[in-house]
């Protein structure tokens, strides 16, 4: 009985359950098309894992995760475009819009698959480390941090649009055919991509869980709740926040990288202000401080977006905004906090029952 109780046993059961759902149930019941959509939602959920850590636990409202998602996505897409073009050829869009006869210098390292793969995670982390150390040392926080992150997402998207000849501009990097030698139009390979994404998501959740339950995780909550006090204990809160910010950036980068083979495109429209806010909404609705809440919330909101925006393309944006505001104003802990409330109610009810029994016996 004890085996089924403790929090780590519950977590293990949760992991096993999600693995069954993701690896057995979903491929069985979903069509190839729906499974492809689920792969996309799971990528968004990977970003939400980082948001849960940085925002839910660290209090950093990261409204600019699109930057890191984009860095990961472009790093991956650049490699895939080079590979699609074949040795010695330029990617298709460069032949159309550009005047260059050879790859720009900053494209060249991405021809190497190992470099590109490492860059999908390390590049966003490095950028986050530089940005973060500026931001946190200058003690930018709260709404100012959120606005700054958002401005960065906007700036990055605008910069990409301006570089038509080397980034594909507004169109982005599209029409990606192959993924490390596998043709992406083959449903079997698409399914493989889905499995890779599902496995990556579970891995990130496990990593985030370890961080949240570590001493660092406790310290992060302390910094979120009382930064000044932490400073008087001899810690530099800037470093504590920086770790969460950089890890969240790496997670967003990996999500962006895996998004590319799943969807076949990365473009400024997928990483600007609106998508950056969308990355956060799912976590807010599901419960930003809870990993399970953030992940399920992200999948649910992404699914709702597809389902509802097909029916009501104009109304969805308003609905989404409303959802965000309602969640923040009335349910700051998200749907996950409802479970906690129910559990507490039940516990107090049981306590009352337990308290009654001895009295009865005494009588």
């Amino acid at each position, binding site marked *: 009985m004890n085996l089924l109780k403790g929090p780590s046993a519950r977590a293990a059961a949760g992991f096993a359950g999600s693995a069954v759902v993701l690896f057995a149930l979903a491929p069985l019941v979903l069509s190839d098309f729906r499974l492809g959509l689920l792969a996309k939602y799971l990528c968004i959920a990977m970003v939400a894992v980082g948001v849960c850590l940085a925002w839910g636990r660290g209090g950093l409202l990261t409204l600019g995760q699109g930057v890191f998602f984009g860095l990961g996505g472009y790093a991956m897409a650049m490699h895939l475009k080079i590979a699609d073009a074949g040795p010695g050829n330029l990617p298709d869009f460069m032949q159309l819009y550009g005047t260059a006869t050879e790859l720009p210098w900053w494209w060249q390292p991405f021809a190497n698959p190992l470099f590109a793969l490492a860059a999908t995670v390390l590049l966003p982390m490095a950028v986050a480390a530089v940005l973060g150390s500026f931001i946190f040392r200058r003690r930018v926080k709260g709404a100012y941090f959120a606005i700054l992150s958002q401005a960065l997402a906007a700036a990055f998207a605008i910069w990409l649009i301006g570089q038509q000849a080397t980034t594909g501009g507004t169109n982005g990097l599209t029409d990606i055919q192959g993924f490390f030698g596998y043709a992406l139009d083959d449903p079997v390979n698409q399914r493989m991509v889905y499995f890779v994404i599902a496995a990556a998501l579970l891995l990130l959740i496990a990593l985030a869980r*370890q*961080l949240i*339950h*570590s*001493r*660092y995780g*406790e*310290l992060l*909550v*302390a910094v979120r*709740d*009382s930064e*000044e*006090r*932490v*400073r*008087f*204990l*001899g*810690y*530099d*809160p800037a470093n504590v926040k920086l770790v969460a910010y950089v890890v969240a950036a790496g997670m967003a980068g990996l999500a962006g990288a895996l998004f590319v083979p799943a969807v076949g495109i990365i473009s400024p429209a997928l990483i600007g202000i609106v998508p950056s806010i969308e990355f956060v909404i799912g976590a807010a609705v599901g419960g930003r401080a809870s990993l399970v809440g953030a992940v399920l919330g992200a999948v649910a909101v992404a699914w709702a977006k597809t389902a509802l925006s097909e029916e009501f393309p104009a109304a969805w944006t308003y609905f989404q905004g409303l959802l965000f505001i309602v969640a923040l104003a009335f349910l700051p802990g998200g749907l996950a906090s409802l479970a906690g409330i129910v559990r507490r109610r039940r516990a107090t009810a049981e306590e009352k029952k337990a308290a009654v029994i001895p009295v009865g016996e005494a009588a």
Partner: protein
Amino acid sequence: MSGLEIRRLRVSFDGFTAVDGVDLDVRPGDLRFLIGPNGAGKTTLVDAVTGLVRAEGSVRFGGEELLGRSVHRIARSGIGRTFQTATVFEELTVLQNLDIAAGAGRSLWTMLRRRKDVPEPVARALETVGLTELADSPAGTLAHGQKQWLEIGMLLVQDVRLLLLDEPVAGMSHDERQATGELLQRISAERTVVVIEHDMDFMRSFARSVSVLHAGKVLSEGTVAEVQADPKVQEVYLGHAAAETTADVAVQEA
């Protein structure tokens, strides 16, 4: 043990000088009380020593100059403080609060793993401040006095050599004050303690030495009896009769 040595300390905010050329020496192992009317600059003095506000002059602890260092570096050189309103991490348990306070020097590897057991200094501090029973309760559920004790416990596990306590017994019952005073006496056997306090009974019972601050300057210094006999001190407190009735009575009683 190290002592605190403050020279010509000045703190001003937009033209208002809150601390105006304070010289203050606290011997190692002293239990020093800082008293004075509201606005005398007591808390600002502590803020300056702990790096929270900019100051001119010199603050040396154990021979090291502290002014100009950042808050967390000053904390790491062995100086800890509490605040007028207890600030503990409400959502974390008592144990977690103490564990964090104990951990500023931990390696990255230790930080990234779970806490498996209760570290020895944490267990000792729990015992010292009498919170062992409540180790797993969220700090937010503690009573006011218990939060103050938790804060003192956090300073103990932080292993500070100088404790700066800002009104630690405010809002406590008589018994709690007594317990806190005895706790401070025990602590000051191995560490240097500076207490800002308005409660004159508490000061008389536990102070080893007293400094009286007034309008940003040190007005008088010495043992409790010496300070109370000082006509300058009596004048300051009598001048503030309306606002400082407790202090007033205390001085007259002497």
